[in-house]
């Protein structure tokens, strides 16, 4: 099993958003099994709150550190805010607009998939997820400071 870390040894951090408690637990286990650090959120609002994007004009330095996220994987169908809407909101922000998004759904709806991919998702995955799906995620991830250091983060 390879490690999912950047060249400087930092662990890749994934924010996983899903309103179903079983699916959240399952995705968390899959991600941890691939050596990612995982934070879960049960809906779009919680995810935005975690990222410091809910009504705060400036995230505090502490908050920015905690919310260093390399990729967001979210369910599409969630109450209140869909995964697509979450992605749009996150991409509107200056801090997180470059964060890669992967959207998951149990429903294979081509128009939905196309829209997600056109509007910024790196990948659309059909549920239920498997370990092999999660292993692929590292190819979409960026090192947070890559725009400063210009280094590519390679998963092994």
């Amino acid at each position, binding site marked *: 099993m390879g490690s999912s870390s950047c060249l400087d040894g930092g662990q890749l951090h994934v924010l996983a958003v899903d309103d179903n*408690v*079983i*699916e959240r637990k*399952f995705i968390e*286990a*899959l991600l941890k099994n691939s050596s990612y650090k995982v934070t879960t959120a049960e809906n779009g609002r919680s995810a935005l709150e975690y990222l410091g994007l809910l009504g705060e004009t400036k995230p505090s330095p502490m908050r920015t550190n905690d919310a260093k996220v390399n990729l967001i994987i979210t369910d599409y169908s969630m109450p209140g805010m869909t995964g697509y809407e979450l992605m749009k909101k996150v991409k509107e922000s200056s801090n997180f607009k470059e964060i890669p998004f992967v959207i998951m759904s149990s429903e294979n709806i081509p128009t939905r998939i196309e829209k997600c991919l056109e509007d910024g998702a790196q990948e659309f995955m059909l549920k239920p997820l498997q370990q092999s799906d999660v292993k692929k995620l590292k190819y979409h991830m960026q090192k947070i400071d890559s725009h400063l250091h210009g280094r590519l983060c390679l998963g092994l």
Partner: protein
Amino acid sequence: MDVSQLQRSWVEFLTALFNEGFLDSQFNQLLQLQDESNPNFVAEVVTDFFHDSERLLNELTGVLDQQIVDFKKVDSHVHQLKGSSASIGVERVKNMCIAFKAFCEESNREGCLRCLHQVKQEYFLVKDKLQTLFMLEQQIVAAGGSPPLM
């Protein structure tokens, strides 16, 4: 019984669950996530699944019992149950949920009630099977062994 006999029983029982369609290949994903650092993963997730499913089945019973059925609510609960049963790999329950959803979309109360009855049957059947599997696992551990990795 010695450990290897118990392990054989476990493998036979699990294999039968796959062959009889109670479980599908997704269950293998769960088994693969269980290791020394996460020794009780399957039992934990499945136990959570039991609690969550029974909650959903109770809610569904309540909603379908109303004079005027809120099919949006029914659909939402069935969607949840379908999602979690798909993630765990309990195939028959998942398939019943797919049928259930179709009746929901037609706002077909009779169809929904029939599906609810069938989902409950399938759910309690597979719950019983999985509890037996966990019991076999506990016997293996008590005898000093560990369940074979599939």
